[in-house]
């Protein structure tokens, strides 16, 4: 904070400096238009959600959806990917994550638009003769939904530790309320409380880490931190103990957000307790925010250590290696022995974080190669997209189906034989879990090529072998889901909810995994260019930024031409 204040004081003193600073602020604002649109949308939702007329209240979901679609249009440089599949102009990493947040966020909205409508308190309040604002939940729900997405988008564009912390909290705080939204369901209450307390603990841990990083470098601005770390490394040949401790604590704190070992304990309970549509949200948004934050923090250190100058500092590398391996094994082995589908998918979420942490270990190569494979960060953001689509499909379907008591289905017995009476629903579920499994030709498979190939490129051969063994283990429970849905004996009293939006969202998510499996080339291209440079650049690096963006694409194009000419 101190240096912000000093900045402000210097601003007041020097007028030309101030002019420059205003430019910076306007530039930031220009980049923040999508966030501002969502914020405005959220505030509008708060108002319409409490409208006197039922029609106004029901419009809340539409407002949220419209603001998401509007936000996509205003993502900086978004027009460049619509121009053509293989253009040289690019989104940066924050742009890509914003795109993912808004587009998958829209699917999540489709899936969860009916959540407030289906709550018992809303139903009672709608039936009551007198309007009762205390029990109508729509406004809060959609506003929190949008605020959380804003948090994710701000995280991706963070330039300062304080900004990063506030953005992460903005992502998480609304989700605590969303989890507990089903007030009469005791499991949701438990999940909400558990999620909140453990979330607060993790925030404390990474905030402590931030404090130590600040102590070690004297800055909260990420670019300055990166400068100081580079200078420290140059002077001493190693990083100070305080800095390393700070980084380790930060990474451990972020593990909560991405649901990775050792902070994965909450995942199963919270994912199971929350309404399935909210679970889909939890599986994607905090995870994406956590990975964005990890990428930003790690890029202040840079992948420039080790004998070949392409690794993280050894301690961080060991830490991330352990996190990756333990998350994969814990997630997949525990997922295998679950009786509840939601818990199994929660553990699968832990395992997927493990795969993605491999990408963090690989990082961004100093010299961009002509091929997309080799850039771990690009692999992560692509994988996040694939994972988001598949988890919208799978959790969305679980939200679509009710058992005879009218509760959301949860156990394998309840989804058994789904195919017999609900063919489309079962097909979507199967497609989604096969994509999670990484079955070719679905999108999850491309994600696996990306991550594992990049890990090879960085020399993590054993990590790849561990990861493919884990993919094989994960087959057991994904297959069990498909097995139950298609071959089981249909359970009594299973009905599909009358929520077309939910089915549409899940359907789009699942079909997208199939279509993007075949046509995902442009997305790989976008991801690889988005992560060409780390999100935080040293001063000397950002000077050649303009030059670096003009990386010659000719050799790759020539190679492709050769291949296609055959």
């Amino acid at each position, binding site marked *: 904070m101190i240096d912000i204040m000093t900045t402000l004081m210097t601003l007041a003193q020097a007028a030309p400096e101030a002019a420059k600073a205003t430019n910076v602020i306007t530039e930031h604002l220009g980049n923040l238009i999508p966030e501002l649109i969502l914020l405005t949308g959220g505030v509008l939702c708060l108002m319409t959600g409490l409208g006197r007329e039922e029609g106004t209240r029901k419009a809340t979901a539409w407002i949220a959806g419209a603001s998401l679609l509007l936000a996509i249009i205003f993502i900086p440089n978004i027009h460049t990917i619509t121009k053509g599949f293989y253009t040289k102009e690019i989104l940066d990493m924050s742009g890509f994550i914003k795109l993912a947040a808004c587009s998958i966020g829209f699917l999540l909205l489709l899936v969860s638009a009916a959540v407030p409508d289906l709550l018992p308190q809303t139903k009672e309040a709608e039936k009551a003769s007198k309007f009762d604002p205390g029990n109508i939940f729509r406004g809060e729900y959609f506003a929190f939904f949008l605020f959380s997405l804003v948090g994710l988008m701000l995280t991706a564009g963070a330039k300062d530790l304080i900004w990063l912390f506030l953005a992460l909290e903005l992502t998480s705080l609304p989700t605590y309320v969303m989890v507990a939204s089903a007030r009469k369901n005791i499991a949701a209450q438990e999940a909400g409380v558990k999620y909140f307390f453990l979330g607060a603990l993790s925030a404390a841990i990474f905030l402590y880490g931030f404090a130590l990083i600040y102590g070690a470098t004297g800055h909260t601005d990420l670019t300055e931190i990166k400068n100081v770390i580079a200078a420290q490394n140059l002077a001493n040949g190693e990083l100070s103990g305080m800095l390393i401790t700070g980084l380790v604590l930060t990474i451990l704190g972020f593990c909560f957000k991405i649901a990775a070992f050792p902070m994965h304990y909450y995942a199963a309970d919270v994912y199971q307790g929350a309404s399935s549509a909210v679970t889909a949200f939890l599986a994607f948004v905090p995870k994406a925010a956590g990975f964005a934050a990890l990428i930003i923090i790690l890029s202040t250190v840079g992948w420039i250590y080790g004998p070949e100058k392409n690794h993280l500092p050894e301690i961080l590398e060991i830490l991330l290696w352990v996190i990756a391996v333990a998350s994969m094994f814990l997630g997949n082995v525990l997922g295998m022995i679950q009786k509840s589908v939601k818990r199994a998918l929660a553990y699968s979420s832990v395992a997927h974080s493990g795969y993605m942490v491999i990408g963090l270990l690989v990082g961004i190569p100093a010299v961009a190669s002509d091929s997309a494979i080799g850039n771990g960060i690009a692999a992560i953001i692509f994988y996040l997209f694939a994972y988001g689509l598949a988890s919208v499909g799978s959790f969305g379907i679980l939200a679509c189906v009710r058992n005879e008591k009218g509760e959301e289905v949860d156990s394998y017995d309840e989804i058994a034989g789904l195919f017999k009476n609900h063919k489309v629903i079962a097909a979507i579920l199967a497609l989604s879990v096969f994509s999670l499994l990484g079955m*070719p030709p679905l999108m999850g498979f491309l994600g696996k090529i990306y991550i*594992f190939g990049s890990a090879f490129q960085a020399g993590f051969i054993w990590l790849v072998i561990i990861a493919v063994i884990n993919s094989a283990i994960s087959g057991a429970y994904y*297959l069990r889901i498909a097995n139950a849905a298609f*071959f089981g004996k249909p359970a009594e009293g299973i009905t599909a909810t009358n929520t077309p939006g939910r089915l549409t969202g899940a359907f789009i998510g699942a079909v997208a995994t199939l279509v993007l499996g075949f046509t*995902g*080339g442009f997305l790989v291209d976008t991801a690889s260019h988005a992560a060409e440079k780390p999100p935080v650049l040293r001063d000397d690096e950002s000077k050649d930024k303009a030059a670096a963006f003009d990386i010659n694409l000719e050799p790759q194009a020539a190679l492709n031409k050769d*291949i296609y000419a055959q």
Partner: protein
Amino acid sequence: MTLETLLIPAMVLVPAIFAFVLLIPGKVFDFKKNIVAFSFVGTLFSFIISLFIAFNFNWGEPVMQMQGAIPWVPDFGLTFSWGIDSISLWLILLTTFLMPLIIIGSYSSFEGREREFFFWMLVLETAMIGTFVATDIIFFYICFEFTLVPLFFLIGVFGGENRLKAARIFFLYTFTGSMLTFAAILFVAWTYSTTHAGVWTFQITELYAAAQSMPLHHQGLVLAGLLAGFAVKVPLFPVHTWLPLAHTEAPTAGSVILAGVLLKLGTYGILRFALPMTPEAIIAFAPYVGSLAVAGVLYAALVCWVQTDVKKLIAYSSVSHLGFCVLGLFSFDSNNMGSIGAVMYMVNHGLSTGALFLCIGMIYERFHTREMAKMSGLGRAMPIWGFFMVFFTASSVGLPGLNGFVGEFLTLIGSFVSPYTLGWQFAAPAAAGMIFAAIYLFYMLGKVVWGPLKIPHVHGHTADWKPSDLNAREISILVPIAIVCVWLGFNPNPLLNSLEKPIAQLSAPTNSIIDAQKEATLKATTPAHVEADISLEPQAKAWESKVLIAN
């Protein structure tokens, strides 16, 4: 792209297009007859295109022909690229030839959910042909993996009593193996990228060179990964345990496809990828893989002998027969007789074992049992069926004059004269396996076809009920296969000649290493011997002197 390059994609995609048309809601497909006729037309289309390709194919050229490509993920170097040589063309012909027959054959094998059944059958055909035409290794891998999904559903929905377990075990077993194959493929592609400025490609021909330049211990890792996937698929002893379960529980059509084509994906993968990519490692691994193959041949033959379920017996016989195939692939004799025989064996096994499964399916439709103890002398009640059963068994045993003989004989000869990798130690016990095959298969015939007439009791029929013999539809399925069996038995030369060059190309790296080693040992034997004698002396003396000093 000329019309010729589009023939292959057309052949691959036609079944899939027909499959998706089947899903369109409407009354036309509420009748089984329409569905079967429609799927039959789809597979027949594919067969006709494949015949057309075969006529336009230049059989003398060993290179990939009719190549084409569609970009997929250019940043990864991934393309959907295709091309065929004579090895793949023979296997494609086998697939497209069997599929229409299987479709007609499954007309009466089950009731209900027909759309689903034929949908998966047609999708499966696309995946199988795709495997044989791919020249991009990830494209190959996609099709290879994707064959699991249709068969998973075919077994899981339409299988026997224990179908859920069978489907699950089948899927997980093969999926686990092929994940390791995936890692090996990425490893090779990465090796390529390190020597090509970080550019990745998955073109098979490019990867051959990259993999061959790897050091031995890396080649060993790659070969282990490739074999993990392919050996499960073959299946090689001791990872064969999924096969009998999957076979017995699968519906007839599933068993025929499994035995006829899917098992060949494993041997095809070994031939197409493992042999040319990792020549040094192949030589190091050959004795071990050979021993496993021989163990599989003998073990499965003995297991066959004690089976009481006819289908299970044939399923185990596949394990035994495919052992010969692997043995042939690893023999590397100077004329490549082993490998040529192995490819011939793949085709023959697909025909004769596929036909045997069809015959058994016909029995099962009539009696709803396959227990040998419950039936005997069926040849008396169903003479036409008896004829075909004996005919295909003879072909499977390798009776000279029928197709099975040529391939089996060549693989055995190949491994007998194999100079460096295998030898008579492997061929002799395998030849004993041939005798076992004759014993257990004729033992089965003796029980089921000959002997006193005993008809299993079928629910809803009186005790003196006589089963009807094969009808025209069933005969028309078996006759084409029988004709091809005889034709290949008497006239194997076109097939063998066309295989010579491409196989010589694929095993050239290994053969050249073997030749080099042979020359080196020839040169080295005499001088090395002398040197050894000389060098022994001083050492002995030095040792003595040390002893003296110590004393």
